[in-house]
């Protein structure tokens, strides 16, 4: 291999110094890393698993793996992306299903060639009103329940893209799929979630 091929760029992100301090032996700094990410990871897990117990297990297992493999982390990606790569791989290995998940996984094949629905029905209130007026506990529950009924490979994409704020490229790298594949899965997942909300007629706050 030529020297040029051996060079990989170092990503100096906001966690660069913290991670290096831990790698240099300052284990107390690991607490800072945990404090920084436990809330986000727990919420990622809760959206993926649909219940707090499984989300707790996911967070614990993720941090155990971070601690175990941090020495080998070479800053080739942002730390946050590496952290979510670990968390998603744990999610993919977990066989347990959410209590909300249907017996048989829903198929999103029907969303492959979707024609817009007839406009005879008017745009629902939830799509017209501002988010802070419409997103109450009831609607949040409808969305959360719909998310856990998505097949896992679609659920991961919509959670990483629309909820955790990763870009298409970052999501592709985390999941080791192509950006085109991310876009296809994201679009179908959004169409599915939109359909689950279609008939929601809850009261606006």
């Amino acid at each position: 291999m030529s020297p040029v091929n051996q060079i990989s760029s170092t990503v100096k992100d906001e966690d660069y110094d913290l991670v290096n301090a831990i790698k240099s032996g300052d284990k107390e700094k690991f607490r800072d890393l945990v404090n920084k990410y436990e809330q986000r990871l727990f919420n990622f897990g809760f959206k993926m698993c649909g219940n707090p117990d499984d989300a707790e297990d996911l967070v614990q297992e993720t941090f155990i793996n971070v601690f175990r493999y941090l020495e080998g982390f070479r800053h080739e990606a942002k730390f946050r992306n590496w952290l979510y790569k670990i968390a998603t791989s744990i999610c993919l290995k977990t066989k347990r299903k959410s209590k909300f998940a249907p017996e048989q996984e829903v198929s999103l094949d029907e969303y492959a060639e979707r024609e817009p629905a007839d406009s005879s029905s008017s745009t629902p209130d939830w799509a017209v009103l501002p988010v802070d007026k419409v997103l109450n506990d009831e609607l949040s529950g409808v969305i959360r329940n719909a998310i856990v009924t998505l097949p896992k490979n679609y659920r991961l994409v919509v959670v990483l893209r629309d909820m955790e704020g990763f870009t298409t490229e970052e999501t592709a790298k985390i999941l080791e799929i192509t950006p085109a594949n991310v876009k296809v899965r994201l679009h179908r997942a959004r169409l599915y979630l939109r359909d689950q909300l279609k008939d929601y007629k809850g009261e606006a706050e």
Partner: protein
Amino acid sequence: MSEKQHMDEHCKELCNRLSEYIDGEIDDADCEKIAAHLKGCEKCITHIETLKKTKELCSHLKDKKVPETLSAKLDDFIRGCK
């Protein structure tokens, strides 16, 4: 092909790219094509509005508080790491 059938095919084709359009991940030419279509197609306007709002609602879900049991377990783990 009738004009209506042609329109439906056109809607279907554009519909598959609406998420990319919403996310600003589409090239200028296609972006203009979709914007022009949206000016005259109520069906697609409703479609894109509901899709956009679905994305927005997902991104605004409130965070759940980390259970104390988890924080305690993580504390134990950190103490054991030293």
